[in-house]
């Protein structure tokens, strides 16, 4: 059975319980009190010490509210024309998204790893064996989503393990357990796929026609990656969440590169041989 995540960003409230739960359970060091100045997101991105990261997508419209504004209505749905005769074309965007390792079906990091430290475990999750990794750092630029980094002072690369240890004990990952809105769901990828599709249909029926699933072979898990075991329900273009629309499996090009290199070797060999002719 393959397990994975479904992160439904439409119900995320940005409480960061997942970030905290992940740090606690996995005993990850703090990243320091750095204020980014970007919204309430002071973590910024995923890294070897941040395996869940809540993005705060904020783009307020700088328009004045006039008239008798029904703020409750505004908070529930932003409609046009606004209730109470307010003049405001939109409330601005304010969205949250809890990012995590995508646990790719054809994982670039795993294919890049020269030590075989990165494996697929029995739950079909992409897992770094910390006792094997020698910190070459090659998985870092290979990941099309910027998930892995090497941890300073340790030297090795780390990322989400999908709580391998908890899964072995029959528990769900710490982030999914802690999530108060069920934005993070954990389970069999096949089941989650159905849940995701249902959720998107439901959102479409409600009028949110822009909702879609990210992490499929069509969007997010493209270019040979063949889909992701961590899927997301998104409401905006992937780039707004710092996700690529159409990433590639970098190792698809290795064979062609080797053939090109071999041809070049032949040509250069012939050039050198010709140079010896009198």
């Amino acid at each position, binding site marked *: 059975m393959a397990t994975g995540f479904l992160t439904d960003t439409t119900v995320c409230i940005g409480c960061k319980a997942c970030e905290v739960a992940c740090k606690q359970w996995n005993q990850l060091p703090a990243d320091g009190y750095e204020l980014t100045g970007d919204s309430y997101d002071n973590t910024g991105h995923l890294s070897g010490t941040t395996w869940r990261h809540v993005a705060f997508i904020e783009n307020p419209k700088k328009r004045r509210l006039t008239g008798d504004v029904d703020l409750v209505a505004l908070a529930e*749905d932003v409609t046009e024309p606004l209730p109470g005769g307010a003049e405001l074309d939109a409330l601005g965007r304010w969205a949250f998204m809890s990012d995590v390792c995508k646990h790719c079906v054809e994982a670039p990091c795993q294919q890049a790893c020269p030590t075989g430290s990165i494996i697929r475990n029995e739950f079909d999750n992409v897992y770094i064996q910390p006792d094997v990794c020698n910190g070459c750092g090659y998985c870092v630029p290979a990941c099309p989503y910027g998930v892995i980094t090497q941890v300073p002072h340790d030297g090795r690369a780390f990322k989400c393990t999908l709580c391998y240890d908890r899964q072995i004990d029959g528990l769900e990952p710490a982030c999914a357990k802690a999530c108060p809105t069920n934005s993070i769901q954990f389970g069999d990828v096949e089941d989650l796929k159905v849940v995701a599709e249902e959720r998107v249909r439901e959102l479409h029926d409600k009028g949110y026609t*822009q909702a879609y699933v990210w992490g499929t072979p069509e969007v997010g898990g493209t270019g040979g990656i063949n889909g992701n075991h961590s899927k997301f329900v998104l409401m905006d273009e992937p780039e707004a969440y710092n996700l690529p629309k159409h990433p590639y499996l970098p190792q698809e090009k290795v064979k062609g590169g080797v053939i*090109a290199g071999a041809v070049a070797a032949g040509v250069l060999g012939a050039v050198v041989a010709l140079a010896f002719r009198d």
Partner: protein
Amino acid sequence: MSEATRESVQQSNGKVETSHHPQTDPKRNDKHYYGIPPIKHAHWTWQIPVYFWIGGIGAGTQLFSTVAQLLGHEDAALKRASRYTVLVTMILSPILLIWDLGRPERFYNMMRILKLRSPMSTQSWSLLTFGNLGGLLAARQAAEDGLLGRNALSRLLLRLIPERLLSVLALPFGLFVGFNTGNLISATSVPLWARNWALMAPTFLASGTSTALSWLSLVLHLTRSGEAKTLRALHRAEKATIVIEAGLIAVSLVRMSRWGKPLFSKSVAPLFVGGALVAGIVAPFALLFSGRETRGKNILSSLLVLAGGLAFRFSLIKAGRISADDPEAYFTFASGESAPQPEDKV
């Protein structure tokens, strides 16, 4: 839902227009998340480009000396210079690579598995093979040169090490080391590198060969050794590889198109344009193709090519970092229409 909202939903046939909607949000042109890089750059600093340079010299040296040997051109000075060059490069390369590891004491884990799709893995294995074969050849050379003394060990080495066979065996591994460094950087998600996947390996090998030829010619000129025929062949090959290298870099730049911009950015342009292109290609080209060949000119052009080769590798690594840190570059690269496909035509 409030009454008013419910009404408007019913009026608009179940559709709710929200600010989430990209089309209804005219101010939304920010195709990034606060400019934070969506991918992570490689940590490589100076060890890796220096290794690329040294490995390229080792590969090209093996190519030239083996071809000379196969053509029946036995030049003792060339052979000596090549064998020791390969030995030194193959001692330095693993040192640089292990230095670069986060956990250097675990370097041997590279040898627990062979993964054909991982250029880092094939690189380690080819380096190991090439290094050991080169080491054996250098040991034989040392015995021949009397560096090990005239004893039983030297005689044994001379008798047991089949020179021709090992040179020929080492050649493909050496060439692999030479071009695979290109695949090592192109098999990543970094737009500037990945975009040029088809030409990265040939460019690295051509540049490695030209630095190796310059190195050999420099050594032979400085020690005033080497047969006239060797030097003539070296200079001819030097000229040809410089032209090939220049052509490959030009086509690579076309191929990289907009993603190649970091090579011309403020911090990389001096290295790339000034170092790799002008000092490494244009100047030696002018020196080699103008007027009569003199020893001084040849030495100068060799030095320029060697410096240019190093600058080329540094500029590619530095530009790769800028490319990876640029959300706009990655998002346009990974947008679907323009990114490289395996079936892409170059």
